[in-house]
């Protein structure tokens, strides 16, 4: 029983990071109708940024959060301007392929520059913290990751749902032609989506360095999880992605308790069930 409770808590904490990763993916999807297959690689680059901030500058991963966020936001902008923005309006195939190509490219780049070795930050500051609440043990890194991810997810949701600029982004997503008549340049809004998504994945990457290792393939499992989360929350829904992230985290934690080899398989099966049975997702309406 206490094992189960522990898994649920662990799942909830990592689920917050899933939510943060998924928010950027669902933002790009909702506004541009593009699936960013390179999303996990943006997380991976965020992790490397945080790692090198530690190994070169001696910064704790907590301090490198802004650095990683800004670097990956720039990377996202570059990906949009250099590649994705150039295939807008082309066939769905072209759009799928271009982000897929970016994925392969970024992973290859990381492997070429930094070799396939995993990089870990030993003993980050958060590792010194630890709480015991009844039978449940909560580690500092997990709490830092979860709190940071929730704050960042909330910030993205606030930006999109409560600010004028966020409203402009949504308008460009809903009807680019009408939005441009109102003086909104849809292409700028699309670029902004990539900046926000980059910011979110960069922050997620830096947070993850509190207890994960960076490697060229580190992003793969996160992007697969993010697909599941985005589908579960309803494609394009930010609030849905945030809630679904927590739920998928818990589900992963519980499955991991009984069948650790099958957590990813279970998550992917969940994706299939959701898109086939309830394609509008958890919160969506038909």
């Amino acid at each position, binding site marked *: 029983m206490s094992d189960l409770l522990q898994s649920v808590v662990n799942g909830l904490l990592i689920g917050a990071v899933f939510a943060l990763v998924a928010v950027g993916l669902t*933002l790009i999807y*909702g*506004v541009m*109708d593009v*699936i960013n297959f390179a999303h996990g690689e943006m997380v991976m680059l965020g992790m490397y940024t945080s790692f090198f901030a530690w190994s070169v500058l001696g910064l704790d991963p907590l301090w490198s959060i802004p650095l990683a966020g800004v670097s990956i936001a720039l990377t996202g902008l570059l990906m949009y301007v250099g*590649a994705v923005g*150039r*295939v807008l*309006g*082309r*066939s*769905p*195939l*072209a759009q*799928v*392929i*271009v982000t*897929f*190509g*970016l*994925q*392969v*490219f*970024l*992973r*290859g*780049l990381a*492997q*070429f*520059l930094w*070799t*396939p*070795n995993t990089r870990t930050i030993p003993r980050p500051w958060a590792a010194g913290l630890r709480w015991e609440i009844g039978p449940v043990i909560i580690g500092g890194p997990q709490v830092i990751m979860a709190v940071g991810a929730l704050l960042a997810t909330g910030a993205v949701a606030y930006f999109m749902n409560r600010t004028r600029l966020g409203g402009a982004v949504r308008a460009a*997503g*809903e009807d*680019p032609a009408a939005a441009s008549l109102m003086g909104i340049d849809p292409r700028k809004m699309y670029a902004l989506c990539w900046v926000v998504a980059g910011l979110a994945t960069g922050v997620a990457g830096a947070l993850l360095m509190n207890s994960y290792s960076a490697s060229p393939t580190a992003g793969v499992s996160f992007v*697969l999880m993010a*697909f599941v989360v985005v*589908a579960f929350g*309803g*494609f*394009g*829904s*930010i*609030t*849905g992605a945030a809630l679904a992230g927590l739920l998928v985290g818990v589900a992963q934690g519980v499955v991991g308790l009984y069948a650790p080899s*099958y957590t*990813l*398989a279970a998550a*992917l*099966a969940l994706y*299939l069930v959701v*898109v*086939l049975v309830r*394609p*509008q*997702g958890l919160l*969506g*309406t*038909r």
Partner: protein
Amino acid sequence: MSAPTVLHRPSPARLRAFPVRRLPSWTTAVVIVAALAAYPLVFADSAAHNIGILALTFGIAATGWNLLGGYAGQVSFGHALYFGTGAYTTALLVRDGWSPWLAIALSLPLAALFAAAVGWPCFRLRHHYYSIATIAVAEIVFILVTNLPGLGQANGWELPVVEPSLANLQFSLLDKRPYYYVALGFFCVAALAVWLFLRGRAGNYVRAIRDDQVAAAAVGIDVHRYKLAAAALSGAITALAGGFYVMYVLFVDPPSGLGLDLSVSFTLMAVLGGVGRFWGPLLGAWVLVFVQDLTRQEFSGSGRSVDLLLYGALIVLVSITEPGGLLAILQRLWAPVARRLGRASRTETDPEPVESAEVKA
């Protein structure tokens, strides 16, 4: 299926990516096959033969992918599942003493069945939903095969080395040419199957579905059925590549037979060479296998690999600048030459058929 989401943009009329192209003429086919047959005679060393064998094998798989992804417009990132079906079925049966020819032949309908079973639910999904679903199915199978006892788990299967003969589909490692010609034979079979499919009514139907599924359904095409037909043939062809591959390397494990990277490479080959073009995947396979071999020699031992980097860059470049792939570039270069030849002997200058006219009329 429309995406009922908070931020969803109503799907705009998209530019059509692929105009209908003529299927290759017999003369093109004969020239290409003759050039392929001459290759191992021109390049006599074993390394070149190895490149050719791999290029043909992956050319088969990518041609199979292209039928579903390029012609029918259903972008699958899970074709490793069918490659693995061919590889695993062949490996297991040959270990049991079966003839490899029979084993490969048996794996084809099995893969077709799998492809139809995956397509049955998943073809209700459109675009990204479908593509991600194919990843999900293939990854689930990958995880199951890696973990469940009975299918070799992470260790995979080795095949016994037996006396070299055509019946055993094993040849001397000193001279790889027999492997090459078997691969070429298999490629011809695969290409012929795709050609026959595309030439018939089904070929027009799947292209109509790709260009506009709603319109295709409106004129009475059974969309689901023709997607399934394309998927089944596509899966069987990809399994053929898998079956031959396992006989060539005599080993299969989950990453080499079912990995996501494998699915990706089929897609990349087709896209690089020219998606929805008959010879595109073959061209893409040759280029990628060649590039991989080149970079492996260059950077061996450093633990770094430049091939992924190069693949990715190529894919992004091609999809931005020339969606028709390398083949489209070649055709553009060839066009002035052909025009001059045509002026000399005015034979084959039939105009491009109007898009989907035969279906919508």
